[in-house]
Protein backbone atom coordinates (compact mmCIF):
# COMPACT_ATOMS: atom_id res chain seq x y z
CA UNK A 1 0.00 0.00 0.00
CA UNK A 2 1.16 3.47 -0.81
CA UNK A 3 2.23 5.55 2.18
CA UNK A 4 3.22 9.14 2.81
CA UNK A 5 6.85 8.02 2.52
CA UNK A 6 6.32 7.02 -1.12
CA UNK A 7 5.40 10.56 -2.14
CA UNK A 8 8.10 12.47 -3.99
CA UNK A 9 8.47 15.80 -2.21
CA UNK A 10 10.02 18.83 -3.85
CA UNK A 11 10.72 21.70 -1.51
CA UNK A 12 11.45 25.01 -3.25
CA UNK A 13 13.18 27.63 -1.13
CA UNK A 14 12.20 30.65 -3.20
CA UNK A 15 9.05 31.76 -4.97
CA UNK A 16 10.84 31.68 -8.31
CA UNK A 17 11.86 28.07 -7.73
CA UNK A 18 8.27 27.12 -6.79
CA UNK A 19 6.84 28.81 -9.90
CA UNK A 20 9.43 27.11 -12.11
CA UNK A 21 8.41 23.69 -10.74
CA UNK A 22 4.75 24.59 -11.37
CA UNK A 23 5.44 25.73 -14.92
CA UNK A 24 6.59 22.28 -16.01
CA UNK A 25 4.05 19.48 -16.21
CA UNK A 26 6.73 16.95 -15.28
CA UNK A 27 7.40 18.57 -11.90
CA UNK A 28 3.95 20.01 -11.27
CA UNK A 29 2.37 18.40 -8.23
CA UNK A 30 -0.22 18.90 -5.55
CA UNK A 31 0.65 22.01 -3.56
CA UNK A 32 1.16 21.29 0.13
CA UNK A 33 1.00 24.09 2.68
CA UNK A 34 0.36 23.34 6.38
CA UNK A 35 -0.98 19.88 5.57
CA UNK A 36 -3.75 19.95 8.17
CA UNK A 37 -6.36 19.04 5.55
CA UNK A 38 -4.34 17.15 2.93
CA UNK A 39 -2.31 14.83 5.17
CA UNK A 40 -5.52 13.77 6.92
CA UNK A 41 -7.42 13.29 3.65
CA UNK A 42 -4.60 11.23 2.12
CA UNK A 43 -4.20 9.03 5.17
CA UNK A 44 -7.94 8.42 5.45
CA UNK A 45 -8.06 7.47 1.76
CA UNK A 46 -10.62 10.22 1.13
CA UNK A 47 -8.30 11.57 -1.56
CA UNK A 48 -5.77 9.33 -3.34
CA UNK A 49 -2.15 9.92 -2.37
CA UNK A 50 -0.36 11.85 -5.09
CA UNK A 51 2.83 10.67 -6.80
CA UNK A 52 4.56 13.97 -6.14
CA UNK A 53 3.96 17.20 -4.31
CA UNK A 54 5.43 20.66 -4.06
CA UNK A 55 5.85 21.64 -0.42
CA UNK A 56 5.44 25.40 0.01
CA UNK A 57 6.45 25.53 3.67
CA UNK A 58 9.98 26.78 2.94
CA UNK A 59 9.03 29.63 0.56
CA UNK A 60 9.71 32.85 2.50
CA UNK A 61 7.71 35.09 0.12
CA UNK A 62 4.51 33.43 1.34
CA UNK A 63 4.96 34.19 5.02
CA UNK A 64 4.62 37.94 5.47
CA UNK A 65 1.92 40.16 6.90
CA UNK A 66 2.32 43.79 5.85
CA UNK A 67 0.50 47.00 5.00
CA UNK A 68 0.72 48.64 1.59
CA UNK A 69 -1.26 51.59 0.20
CA UNK A 70 -3.89 51.24 2.88
CA UNK A 71 -4.42 47.52 2.29
CA UNK A 72 -3.37 44.62 4.52
CA UNK A 73 -1.34 41.97 2.69
CA UNK A 74 -1.28 38.44 4.09
CA UNK A 75 0.94 35.80 2.49
CA UNK A 76 -0.77 32.53 1.58
CA UNK A 77 1.59 30.61 3.89
CA UNK A 78 0.80 32.70 6.98
CA UNK A 79 -0.57 30.46 9.73
CA UNK A 80 -3.79 30.99 11.66
CA UNK A 81 -1.67 31.44 14.80
CA UNK A 82 0.32 34.24 13.13
CA UNK A 83 -2.88 36.01 12.04
CA UNK A 84 -4.20 35.77 15.61
CA UNK A 85 -1.00 37.26 17.03
CA UNK A 86 0.01 39.95 14.54
CA UNK A 87 -0.67 43.57 15.49
CA UNK A 88 -1.79 44.54 11.95
CA UNK A 89 -4.43 41.84 11.65
CA UNK A 90 -5.58 42.24 15.25
CA UNK A 91 -6.11 45.94 14.73
CA UNK A 92 -7.61 46.00 11.25
CA UNK A 93 -9.28 42.62 10.69
CA UNK A 94 -10.99 41.45 13.89
CA UNK A 95 -13.42 39.09 12.10
CA UNK A 96 -10.54 37.32 10.35
CA UNK A 97 -8.67 37.05 13.65
CA UNK A 98 -11.78 35.60 15.31
CA UNK A 99 -12.29 33.12 12.49
CA UNK A 100 -8.65 31.96 12.66
CA UNK A 101 -9.02 31.55 16.44
CA UNK A 102 -11.97 29.21 15.78
CA UNK A 103 -10.15 26.93 13.34
CA UNK A 104 -9.18 23.70 15.11
CA UNK A 105 -7.08 23.88 18.25
CA UNK A 106 -3.82 25.67 18.96
CA UNK A 107 -1.82 22.82 17.39
CA UNK A 108 -3.74 23.12 14.11
CA UNK A 109 -3.47 26.89 14.15
CA UNK A 110 0.34 26.52 14.33
CA UNK A 111 0.36 24.65 11.01
CA UNK A 112 -2.74 25.51 8.99
CA UNK A 113 -2.42 28.49 6.66
CA UNK A 114 -4.79 31.06 5.21
CA UNK A 115 -3.87 30.01 1.67
CA UNK A 116 -4.52 26.38 2.50
CA UNK A 117 -7.86 27.17 4.11
CA UNK A 118 -9.03 28.95 0.95
CA UNK A 119 -7.43 26.49 -1.51
CA UNK A 120 -9.08 23.54 0.22
CA UNK A 121 -12.27 25.33 -0.89
CA UNK A 122 -14.59 23.66 1.56
CA UNK A 123 -17.86 25.58 1.91
CA UNK A 124 -17.16 25.22 5.66
CA UNK A 125 -13.77 26.96 5.41
CA UNK A 126 -13.99 29.35 8.35
CA UNK A 127 -11.77 32.13 7.02
CA UNK A 128 -13.74 32.76 3.82
CA UNK A 129 -16.65 34.87 5.20
CA UNK A 130 -14.20 37.20 6.96
CA UNK A 131 -12.19 37.55 3.74
CA UNK A 132 -15.38 38.36 1.82
CA UNK A 133 -16.47 41.17 4.17
CA UNK A 134 -12.97 42.69 3.94
CA UNK A 135 -13.32 42.82 0.12
CA UNK A 136 -10.32 40.54 -0.18
CA UNK A 137 -8.50 39.98 -3.43
CA UNK A 138 -6.63 36.76 -4.03
CA UNK A 139 -3.31 37.34 -5.76
CA UNK A 140 -2.08 34.31 -7.68
CA UNK A 141 1.32 33.99 -9.29
CA UNK A 142 2.86 32.02 -12.12
CA UNK A 143 6.01 32.59 -14.18
CA UNK A 144 3.76 34.62 -16.51
CA UNK A 145 2.97 37.11 -13.74
CA UNK A 146 0.40 37.87 -11.08
CA UNK A 147 -3.39 37.95 -11.21
CA UNK A 148 -5.56 39.75 -8.66
CA UNK A 149 -8.98 38.11 -8.35
CA UNK A 150 -11.78 39.31 -6.05
CA UNK A 151 -12.42 36.63 -3.42
CA UNK A 152 -16.08 36.28 -4.45
CA UNK A 153 -14.98 35.36 -7.99
CA UNK A 154 -12.09 33.18 -6.85
CA UNK A 155 -14.49 30.75 -5.12
CA UNK A 156 -16.01 29.15 -8.22
CA UNK A 157 -18.06 26.28 -6.87
CA UNK A 158 -18.02 23.43 -4.36
CA UNK A 159 -14.29 22.70 -3.83
CA UNK A 160 -13.39 24.66 -6.98
CA UNK A 161 -11.22 27.75 -7.09
CA UNK A 162 -9.98 29.91 -9.94
CA UNK A 163 -6.35 28.76 -9.78
CA UNK A 164 -4.61 27.81 -13.01
CA UNK A 165 -2.47 24.65 -12.90
CA UNK A 166 0.76 26.66 -13.15
CA UNK A 167 -0.24 29.09 -10.41
CA UNK A 168 -0.07 29.24 -6.65
CA UNK A 169 -1.87 31.57 -4.26
CA UNK A 170 0.68 34.21 -3.39
CA UNK A 171 -1.19 36.47 -0.98
CA UNK A 172 -4.48 38.03 0.05
CA UNK A 173 -5.07 41.77 -0.05
CA UNK A 174 -7.71 43.06 2.34
CA UNK A 175 -9.32 46.38 3.13
CA UNK A 176 -8.94 47.20 6.81
CA UNK A 177 -12.05 47.77 8.88
CA UNK A 178 -12.72 51.53 8.63
CA UNK A 179 -12.33 53.76 11.68
CA UNK A 180 -15.52 53.64 13.71
CA UNK A 181 -16.57 50.40 12.03
CA UNK A 182 -17.05 47.07 13.73
CA UNK A 183 -16.41 43.49 12.63
CA UNK A 184 -18.16 40.46 14.05
CA UNK A 185 -17.75 36.73 13.53
CA UNK A 186 -20.07 33.95 14.57
CA UNK A 187 -19.72 30.19 14.18
CA UNK A 188 -22.30 27.54 14.93
CA UNK A 189 -21.15 23.93 15.17
CA UNK A 190 -22.12 20.78 17.02
CA UNK A 191 -20.12 21.98 20.02
CA UNK A 192 -19.00 25.40 21.18
CA UNK A 193 -15.48 24.75 19.86
CA UNK A 194 -13.43 22.10 18.02
CA UNK A 195 -16.25 21.34 15.60
CA UNK A 196 -16.65 21.86 11.87
CA UNK A 197 -19.10 24.66 11.18
CA UNK A 198 -22.76 24.06 10.41
CA UNK A 199 -23.02 27.76 9.56
CA UNK A 200 -20.65 30.65 10.16
CA UNK A 201 -20.81 34.31 9.32
CA UNK A 202 -18.87 37.55 9.34
CA UNK A 203 -20.06 41.12 9.34
CA UNK A 204 -18.48 44.51 8.86
CA UNK A 205 -20.70 47.43 9.78
CA UNK A 206 -20.30 51.20 10.00
CA UNK A 207 -23.08 52.97 11.90
CA UNK A 208 -23.66 56.69 12.37
CA UNK A 209 -26.39 58.01 14.66
CA UNK A 210 -28.33 54.76 14.49
CA UNK A 211 -28.14 54.60 10.69
CA UNK A 212 -26.41 51.77 8.84
CA UNK A 213 -23.92 53.65 6.67
CA UNK A 214 -22.08 50.63 5.31
CA UNK A 215 -22.59 46.92 5.82
CA UNK A 216 -20.95 43.78 4.48
CA UNK A 217 -22.41 40.39 5.39
CA UNK A 218 -21.05 36.96 4.46
CA UNK A 219 -21.99 33.42 5.42
CA UNK A 220 -20.32 30.06 4.97
CA UNK A 221 -21.68 26.50 4.75
CA UNK A 222 -24.98 27.77 3.33
CA UNK A 223 -24.15 27.40 -0.38
CA UNK A 224 -21.53 25.71 -2.58
CA UNK A 225 -19.08 28.46 -1.58
CA UNK A 226 -19.01 31.12 1.11
CA UNK A 227 -21.21 34.00 -0.08
CA UNK A 228 -21.89 37.68 0.46
CA UNK A 229 -25.52 38.66 1.03
CA UNK A 230 -26.02 41.58 -1.41
CA UNK A 231 -29.83 41.71 -1.07
CA UNK A 232 -29.74 41.91 2.70
CA UNK A 233 -26.90 44.45 2.56
CA UNK A 234 -28.97 46.63 0.16
CA UNK A 235 -32.03 46.33 2.39
CA UNK A 236 -30.06 47.61 5.40
CA UNK A 237 -27.84 50.30 3.86
CA UNK A 238 -28.84 53.87 4.65
CA UNK A 239 -31.63 52.85 7.04
CA UNK A 240 -32.13 53.43 10.73
CA UNK A 241 -31.64 50.17 12.60
CA UNK A 242 -35.00 49.32 14.19
CA UNK A 243 -36.60 46.11 15.48
CA UNK A 244 -38.71 46.01 12.33
CA UNK A 245 -35.69 46.39 10.04
CA UNK A 246 -33.88 43.59 11.89
CA UNK A 247 -36.94 41.33 11.36
CA UNK A 248 -36.95 42.19 7.67
CA UNK A 249 -33.20 41.54 7.37
CA UNK A 250 -33.55 38.14 9.03
CA UNK A 251 -36.32 37.18 6.58
CA UNK A 252 -34.24 38.46 3.67
CA UNK A 253 -31.22 36.36 4.70
CA UNK A 254 -33.38 33.25 4.92
CA UNK A 255 -34.46 33.61 1.30
CA UNK A 256 -31.01 34.66 0.11
CA UNK A 257 -29.11 31.51 1.24
CA UNK A 258 -29.20 28.13 -0.48
CA UNK A 259 -28.12 25.59 2.09
CA UNK A 260 -28.10 21.84 1.60
CA UNK A 261 -28.56 18.96 4.02
CA UNK A 262 -25.44 16.89 4.71
CA UNK A 263 -23.78 14.89 7.48
CA UNK A 264 -23.45 17.95 9.68
CA UNK A 265 -26.85 19.57 9.48
CA UNK A 266 -30.14 19.98 7.61
CA UNK A 267 -30.94 22.64 5.02
CA UNK A 268 -33.81 23.92 7.13
CA UNK A 269 -31.67 24.33 10.26
CA UNK A 270 -28.95 26.12 8.30
CA UNK A 271 -31.46 28.52 6.75
CA UNK A 272 -32.90 29.34 10.15
CA UNK A 273 -29.48 29.76 11.80
CA UNK A 274 -28.33 32.00 8.91
CA UNK A 275 -31.11 34.44 9.76
CA UNK A 276 -30.35 34.22 13.47
CA UNK A 277 -26.64 34.90 12.97
CA UNK A 278 -27.38 38.11 11.04
CA UNK A 279 -30.04 39.06 13.58
CA UNK A 280 -27.40 38.62 16.30
CA UNK A 281 -24.95 40.88 14.46
CA UNK A 282 -27.56 43.63 14.04
CA UNK A 283 -29.07 43.29 17.51
CA UNK A 284 -25.64 43.80 19.07
CA UNK A 285 -25.49 47.17 17.28
CA UNK A 286 -28.84 48.24 18.71
CA UNK A 287 -28.02 47.37 22.30
CA UNK A 288 -24.46 48.56 22.06
CA UNK A 289 -23.19 45.20 23.26
CA UNK A 290 -20.29 43.78 21.35
CA UNK A 291 -16.65 44.54 20.69
CA UNK A 292 -15.24 48.07 20.51
CA UNK A 293 -15.04 49.70 17.10
CA UNK A 294 -11.93 49.59 14.93
Amino acid at each position, binding site marked *: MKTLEDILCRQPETLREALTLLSDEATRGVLLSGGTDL*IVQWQAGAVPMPEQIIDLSAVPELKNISEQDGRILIGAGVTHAAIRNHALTRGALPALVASCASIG*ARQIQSRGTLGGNVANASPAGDASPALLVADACVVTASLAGERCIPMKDFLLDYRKIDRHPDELILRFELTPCPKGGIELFSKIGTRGAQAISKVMGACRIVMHKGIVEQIALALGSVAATAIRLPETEALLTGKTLTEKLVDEAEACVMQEVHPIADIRSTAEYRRWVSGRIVRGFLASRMTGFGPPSC
Partner: protein
Amino acid sequence: MNTITRTWVVNEVEQTVTFEGLRRLLDVLREDLRLTGVKEGCGEGECGACTVLINGEPVTSCIVPAVQVPEGAEILTVEGLEKLELGRRIQKAYIEKGSVQCGFCTPGMLMSSYALLSRNSRPTEQEIREAHAGNLCRCTGYEKIVDAVRAVADELERGTRSTV
Protein backbone atom coordinates in the same frame (compact mmCIF):
# COMPACT_ATOMS: atom_id res chain seq x y z
CA MET B 1 10.17 8.78 -3.13
CA ASN B 2 13.16 10.78 -2.01
CA THR B 3 15.55 10.74 0.93
CA ILE B 4 16.00 13.79 3.11
CA THR B 5 18.54 14.45 5.86
CA ARG B 6 18.00 17.06 8.57
CA THR B 7 19.77 18.13 11.71
CA TRP B 8 17.54 19.36 14.52
CA VAL B 9 18.04 20.17 18.17
CA VAL B 10 15.80 17.64 19.89
CA ASN B 11 15.41 18.12 23.64
CA GLU B 12 18.58 20.23 23.62
CA VAL B 13 20.63 17.55 21.83
CA GLU B 14 21.70 17.82 18.19
CA GLN B 15 20.26 14.93 16.20
CA THR B 16 20.66 14.11 12.52
CA VAL B 17 17.80 12.17 10.97
CA THR B 18 17.23 10.68 7.55
CA PHE B 19 13.77 9.93 6.21
CA GLU B 20 11.78 9.37 3.02
CA GLY B 21 9.16 11.53 1.32
CA LEU B 22 6.50 12.81 3.68
CA ARG B 23 7.35 10.56 6.67
CA ARG B 24 5.55 11.93 9.70
CA LEU B 25 7.46 13.78 12.40
CA LEU B 26 5.73 11.43 14.87
CA ASP B 27 7.35 8.39 13.28
CA VAL B 28 10.79 10.00 13.13
CA LEU B 29 10.54 10.85 16.83
CA ARG B 30 9.11 7.53 18.03
CA GLU B 31 10.75 5.02 15.73
CA ASP B 32 14.01 6.63 14.64
CA LEU B 33 14.87 8.61 17.79
CA ARG B 34 13.05 6.21 20.18
CA LEU B 35 11.21 9.06 21.89
CA THR B 36 8.23 6.88 22.70
CA GLY B 37 6.81 9.38 25.18
CA VAL B 38 5.24 10.96 22.10
CA LYS B 39 1.97 9.02 21.72
CA GLU B 40 -0.14 8.33 18.68
CA GLY B 41 -3.84 8.53 19.41
CA CYS B 42 -6.11 9.40 16.51
CA GLY B 43 -3.46 9.90 13.83
CA GLU B 44 -5.42 12.76 12.32
CA GLY B 45 -4.56 15.82 14.37
CA GLU B 46 -7.63 15.74 16.58
CA CYS B 47 -6.64 14.25 19.94
CA GLY B 48 -3.34 15.97 20.72
CA ALA B 49 -1.59 12.92 22.26
CA CYS B 50 1.30 13.43 19.82
CA THR B 51 1.77 17.13 20.65
CA VAL B 52 5.38 18.35 20.55
CA LEU B 53 6.81 21.84 20.22
CA ILE B 54 8.65 23.05 17.12
CA ASN B 55 10.50 26.27 17.96
CA GLY B 56 8.07 26.74 20.84
CA GLU B 57 4.91 26.21 18.76
CA PRO B 58 2.68 23.27 19.71
CA VAL B 59 1.89 20.93 16.80
CA THR B 60 0.28 17.53 16.39
CA SER B 61 3.27 15.56 15.11
CA CYS B 62 1.03 12.92 13.48
CA ILE B 63 0.11 15.31 10.67
CA VAL B 64 3.39 17.19 10.31
CA PRO B 65 5.65 15.82 7.59
CA ALA B 66 9.21 15.77 8.95
CA VAL B 67 10.36 17.48 5.75
CA GLN B 68 8.46 20.59 6.87
CA VAL B 69 10.56 20.88 10.03
CA PRO B 70 13.42 23.14 8.95
CA GLU B 71 17.12 22.53 9.43
CA GLY B 72 18.24 23.60 12.91
CA ALA B 73 14.71 23.62 14.38
CA GLU B 74 14.33 23.10 18.10
CA ILE B 75 12.00 20.26 18.95
CA LEU B 76 10.78 19.65 22.48
CA THR B 77 9.04 16.42 23.48
CA VAL B 78 7.87 15.22 26.87
CA GLU B 79 11.29 13.59 27.36
CA GLY B 80 12.89 17.05 27.31
CA LEU B 81 10.69 18.63 29.96
CA GLU B 82 12.73 17.41 32.91
CA LYS B 83 15.70 19.39 31.59
CA LEU B 84 13.76 22.63 31.98
CA GLU B 85 12.77 24.27 35.24
CA LEU B 86 9.31 25.18 33.98
CA GLY B 87 8.92 21.66 32.64
CA ARG B 88 9.77 20.14 36.02
CA ARG B 89 7.35 22.48 37.78
CA ILE B 90 4.53 21.46 35.46
CA GLN B 91 5.29 17.75 35.88
CA LYS B 92 5.30 18.14 39.66
CA ALA B 93 2.00 20.04 39.64
CA TYR B 94 0.36 17.31 37.52
CA ILE B 95 1.44 14.75 40.11
CA GLU B 96 0.34 16.86 43.07
CA LYS B 97 -3.05 17.75 41.61
CA GLY B 98 -3.85 14.22 40.42
CA SER B 99 -3.97 15.32 36.77
CA VAL B 100 -2.90 11.89 35.47
CA GLN B 101 -5.20 8.89 35.32
CA CYS B 102 -4.59 6.42 32.48
CA GLY B 103 -1.78 8.69 31.35
CA PHE B 104 -2.05 8.32 27.58
CA CYS B 105 -2.96 11.97 26.97
CA THR B 106 -0.45 13.23 29.54
CA PRO B 107 2.66 13.67 27.35
CA GLY B 108 0.72 15.81 24.86
CA MET B 109 -1.18 17.61 27.60
CA LEU B 110 2.09 18.54 29.35
CA MET B 111 3.45 19.98 26.11
CA SER B 112 0.38 22.20 25.71
CA SER B 113 0.78 23.34 29.31
CA TYR B 114 4.44 24.13 28.66
CA ALA B 115 3.65 25.98 25.40
CA LEU B 116 1.13 28.14 27.24
CA LEU B 117 3.12 28.90 30.39
CA SER B 118 6.37 29.60 28.56
CA ARG B 119 4.64 32.49 26.76
CA ASN B 120 2.05 33.54 29.30
CA SER B 121 2.88 33.05 32.95
CA ARG B 122 -0.46 34.54 34.08
CA PRO B 123 -3.13 32.88 31.94
CA THR B 124 -6.83 33.30 32.67
CA GLU B 125 -8.97 30.21 33.19
CA GLN B 126 -10.29 30.72 29.64
CA GLU B 127 -6.76 30.87 28.25
CA ILE B 128 -5.80 27.69 30.11
CA ARG B 129 -8.83 25.84 28.75
CA GLU B 130 -8.28 27.13 25.21
CA ALA B 131 -4.60 26.17 25.26
CA HIS B 132 -5.57 22.57 26.09
CA ALA B 133 -8.63 22.39 23.81
CA GLY B 134 -6.66 20.33 21.31
CA ASN B 135 -5.79 17.65 23.86
CA LEU B 136 -8.50 15.10 24.55
CA CYS B 137 -8.62 13.32 27.90
CA ARG B 138 -11.28 10.69 28.56
CA CYS B 139 -10.39 10.12 32.22
CA THR B 140 -9.91 13.26 34.24
CA GLY B 141 -12.71 15.55 33.11
CA TYR B 142 -9.95 18.16 32.67
CA GLU B 143 -10.55 19.92 36.01
CA LYS B 144 -7.41 18.58 37.65
CA ILE B 145 -5.34 19.45 34.60
CA VAL B 146 -6.59 23.02 34.73
CA ASP B 147 -5.87 23.01 38.49
CA ALA B 148 -2.26 21.95 37.86
CA VAL B 149 -1.66 24.65 35.26
CA ARG B 150 -3.23 27.26 37.49
CA ALA B 151 -1.07 26.09 40.41
CA VAL B 152 2.10 26.57 38.34
CA ALA B 153 0.91 29.99 37.19
CA ASP B 154 0.17 30.99 40.81
CA GLU B 155 3.59 29.76 41.84
CA LEU B 156 5.24 31.79 39.06
CA GLU B 157 3.29 34.86 40.10
CA ARG B 158 4.33 34.49 43.73
CA GLY B 159 7.87 34.09 42.51
CA THR B 160 8.41 31.22 44.89
CA ARG B 161 11.15 28.88 43.91
CA SER B 162 10.22 25.47 45.14
CA THR B 163 12.99 22.94 44.77
CA VAL B 164 12.15 20.69 41.88
